[in-house]
């Protein structure tokens, strides 16, 4: 069962007159009460929630709560595209809010499996001065974990060039060192495949066959290994 029908957005704006901000508050409140009063929402109810947030955003595009709710709730209700639609419009009206590109990045990563776009938006989010310090690390791990090691290295090198804080520089340098090692080992593994038509079972096989003198040590204290998907990764997960 859905809540009562929502007005068309143009009608909602005309009827609100100069009280569009208050109307937006009302529809956010309705959406919050609707969401909070249902344990599990079906697809129809999820759609209603998405429409309510779209309407609230349309009435007051500078109000943060519709964007916040869209990013936090809608994708889990099977509405990632609606969430993206709302959040992408939010970039124009709230360009100072890092949480909007962050939420877009997360939706692309988790729901759309589009790593390229995810990293692009996480990168945008990390450029804000009040964004969390862990974001640059997250971006580099995202690139390297999904076979884009060169992009991770290039991203971190650029970031290192712009960073003055000594503690952050130390962390970034460590991450960069680990990523360069991963890239190097991945390149060796690909050379192994060209030679033998298959990837090595273990990294030790590469040393035994003379492709590499020794496997370098992970700066994070873990051990490098080759995954079932034939990618070089570390037991430390670079943490």
């Amino acid at each position, binding site marked *: 069962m859905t809540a009562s029908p929502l007005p068309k957005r*143009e009608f909602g*704006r*005309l009827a609100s*007159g*100069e*009280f*569009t*901000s*208050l109307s937006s*508050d009302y529809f*956010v*409140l309705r959406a*919050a009460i609707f969401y909070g009063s249902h344990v599990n929402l079906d697809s129809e109810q999820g759609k209603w929630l998405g429409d309510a947030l779209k309407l609230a955003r349309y009435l*007051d595009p*500078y*109000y*943060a*709560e519709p964007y*916040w*709710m869209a990013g936090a709730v809608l994708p889990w209700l099977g509405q990632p595209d609606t969430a993206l639609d709302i959040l992408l419009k939010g970039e124009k009206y709230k360009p100072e809010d890092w949480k909007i590109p962050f939420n877009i990045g997360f939706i692309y990563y988790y729901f759309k499996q589009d790593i390229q776009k995810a990293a692009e938006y996480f990168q945008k989010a990390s450029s804000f001065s009040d964004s969390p310090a862990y974001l640059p690390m997250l971006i580099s791990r995202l690139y390297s974990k999904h076979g884009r090691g060169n992009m991770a290295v290039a991203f971190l090198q650029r970031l290192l060039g712009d960073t003055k804080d000594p503690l952050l520089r130390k962390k970034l340098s460590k991450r960069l060192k680990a990523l360069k090692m991963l890239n190097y080992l991945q390149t060796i593994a690909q050379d192994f495949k060209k030679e033998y038509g298959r990837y090595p079972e273990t990294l030790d096989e590469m040393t035994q066959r003379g492709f590499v003198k020794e496997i370098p040590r992970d700066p994070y204290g873990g051990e490098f290994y080759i995954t079932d998907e034939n990618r070089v990764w570390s037991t430390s997960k670079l943490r």
Partner: protein
Amino acid sequence: MAKIWTLAVMTFYEGMRERVFLGVLVFILFLLLISGILAQLSIGNTLKVTQDIGLGGLNILGLFIALFLSTQLMAKDLDKKTVYLVLCRPVSRGQYIFGKFVGLAFLNALALVAGFVLFLLALFFFSATSDLINPPVIAWGKHIVAFLFLLLQMFLVTAIAVFFSSFASNGLISFFFTLIVYFIGCNLNNVKLILESKIGENISPSLKGIFSFAYWTLPNISLLDLKSWAVHDMTLSVAELGLRFAYGTFFIAALLFLAASIFSRRELS
């Protein structure tokens, strides 16, 4: 000027004696005081909702006085024939119109200033005691500017009410005409946006023409609405603010002169 002032004072006291006015004033003042408590019903940035309720409440108070009280007081003079008592004195009809406007505007301004002071106190209290992790910065200066524009907006609506009252046969007609012009004035920019969107492609040219005429002749009241600007701490240049202020003032003056001109020629039975 002295005659206009005397009329203004008389109108002011007449308005103060209206029980409905006092009732609405007390209600709105109470609403402003509890705006922060009401905002707790919402989620997230409750201070934003507090500001919306406060500024919205002030807007409604101003509208009540400008729309309802203005048309009623003007109509009462004509219905009870008290206008003759004024006009048989050496007071021109133009002075009568201006005197009425000043009195109504002063009544509106006094109520709104009282409300605004309460709103600021309530907002200060709720922002100081807020439990938000990252409370938003409140642009106090912009709230004052938005309030001044709200006053101007209400003076404009009062001028519209006085204009229609100068020729309407009864208070109800002038009330509805004022309400219609106010509603259209609030939505001129909204309709313009709709006509420029995909929906506008299906609208007939004649309707677009009618809208264009309305856009250029009727007062664009939304230009004086700076509530969102203050709440979201947005940017507007001093030049832009000045232009909007001049726009509002121009319309008020034009409407009053038109009203004075029409009323001067009106046959009073």
